[in-house]
């Protein structure tokens, strides 16, 4: 049986305005609508596919505030079996490294894990490294930025796609994988799935429950911090013309004027 943990993060909807809070420069999570990060739906889909190809169990792991339960329910309604939700006031303002520590401890809670599936990059922080750091902390191989994934017995193969091109990877389980936008099309939860999700177990834990020292997390204990933050003045619209058969020439003139041509 393959024991799979899928990492799900709730993020501010990118269609709404994103801000930093005035007093401590942390992400203002109340100002924007919160949604499950789109890439995580693909992570869930991939976890479910691996489970359905053999036998397995999919546990959703989410580190985030109380209202992240919506993201968890979405993953459960797609077909995940159960969830662990780490929610703790003390996590406010944690840096990426301490978040990864808490996630690592959460993975430990799920027992003998064969595979951890994550998104390659969250849309709010653009860190793109939690899966790699997690592999470091768990002592597992990382097969990240996968656009294709195959699990066969005790091995996992991935086609990694980055700006460098495609890298073919192979490792033994247990392993940490992360998926890109190109890996699959996530399923829509069925009505039955949505009803079933309401009865699926969600274990809510604090940092202390996981045996992580509160002195290791939160804004005050971060290994890096923001010292200054300012919104940039929005870009203003410049000149605009309507093409009357000379649009291309007008652009060329403009570029010459700007010394770009």
């Amino acid at each position: 049986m393959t024991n799979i943990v899928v990492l799900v993060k709730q993020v501010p909807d990118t269609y709404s305005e994103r801000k930093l809070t005035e007093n401590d420069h942390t992400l203002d999570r109340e100002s924007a609508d919160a949604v499950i990060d789109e890439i995580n739906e693909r992570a869930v889909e991939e976890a479910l596919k691996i489970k359905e190809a053999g036998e397995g169990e999919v546990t959703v792991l989410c580190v985030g505030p109380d209202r992240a339960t919506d993201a968890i329910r979405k993953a459960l309604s797609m077909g995940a079996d159960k969830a662990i939700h780490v929610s703790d006031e003390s996590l406010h303002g944690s840096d990426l490294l301490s978040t990864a520590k808490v996630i690592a401890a959460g993975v430990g809670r799920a027992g003998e894990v064969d595979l951890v599936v994550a998104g390659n990059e969250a849309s709010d922080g653009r860190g793109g490294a939690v899966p790699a750091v997690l592999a470091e902390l768990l002592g597992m191989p990382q097969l990240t930025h996968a656009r294709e994934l195959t699990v066969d017995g005790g091995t996992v193969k991935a086609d990694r796609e980055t700006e460098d091109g495609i890298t073919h990877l192979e490792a033994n389980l247990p392993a940490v994988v992360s998926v890109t936008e190109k890996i699959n099309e996530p399923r829509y939860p069925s009505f039955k799935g949505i009803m079933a999700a309401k009865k699926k177990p969600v274990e809510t834990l604090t940092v202390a429950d996981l045996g992580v020292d509160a002195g290791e997390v939160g804004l005050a204990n971060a290994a890096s911090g923001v010292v200054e933050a300012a919104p940039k003045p929005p870009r203003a619209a410049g000149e605009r013309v309507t093409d009357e058969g000379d649009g291309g020439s007008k652009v060329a003139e403009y570029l010459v004027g700007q010394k770009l041509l």
Partner: protein
Amino acid sequence: MAEVLVLVDHVDGEVKKVTGELLTAARALGEPSAVVVGAPGSAGKAKETLASYGAAKVYVAESDEATGYLVTPKVDALATVAGQASPAAVLVAATSEGKEVSGRLAARLGSGWLVDAVGVNSDGTVDQSIFGGAFSVKSKATRGVPVVSVRPGSVEAEQAEGAAAEETVALPAVDPAKSAKVTGVEPVVGGDRPELTEASIVVSGGRGVGSAEKFETVEKLADALGAAVGASRAAVDSGYYPAQFQVGQTGKTVSPQLYVALGISGAIQHRAGMQTSKTIVAVNKDPEAPIFEIADFGVVGDLFDVAPQLTDEVAKRKG
């Protein structure tokens, strides 16, 4: 003066442009040392370029395993050198791999990790541009050796003289239970065009281009300008252009001197990847398209009329 370690981004000793930028940025904090991790012979090939950007030392971490496993040999090499040299900081390119290397290194060293910096300052702070350029931020590491990933294209590379004195680094053996084996690579065949994140001009096409064949119009203008080609997600999803050229929140972030958007509406997620460009030119049939709100010069019109005419004008002027 304190050493500042720079991880060299290279393919078989062929040094990428971003490495010159990192060596330049490193000089704000101390004396740059280049760390080359790769197959035997890589450092020899890279040395001259590294010297010309001011690398005082070149740490040579070469082995066959260095390219045979993903990410971990680079982390091992940097951790080993950091242990010996007590550097003022470690700089890595904020590429997909560089972000992973820097994150793991910061975790291993228990240090502060500064992500996607667009500037490195002599007081140890770094500048960041977040939410697609909507906020400017200054951050600082509060613990350990700061590990910084620097966004390609954000620092202007300046040449300087360096001794590039070689020092050999013994890489620890790779534990295959903890590292993924690389069983094959298919490098991007970029052709003659500059790399998207490194280009000073980018010409992008959106859904308005209409088909993969018609992307030729975008490519022709790009080639006339010596530009890289980009695409919106809608263009990628429709199969007009390959995914590695996607610009935007879930694609590449670009900050060129000139960004030309053809048939792109300018959705917030697209803008997140290009709105810090110095100059933006947009061509769109729809006068209401949001891209015009941020364009320095906009043409309301059909891209298939405007772009070829512009291509001709550029060719004429360049003679």
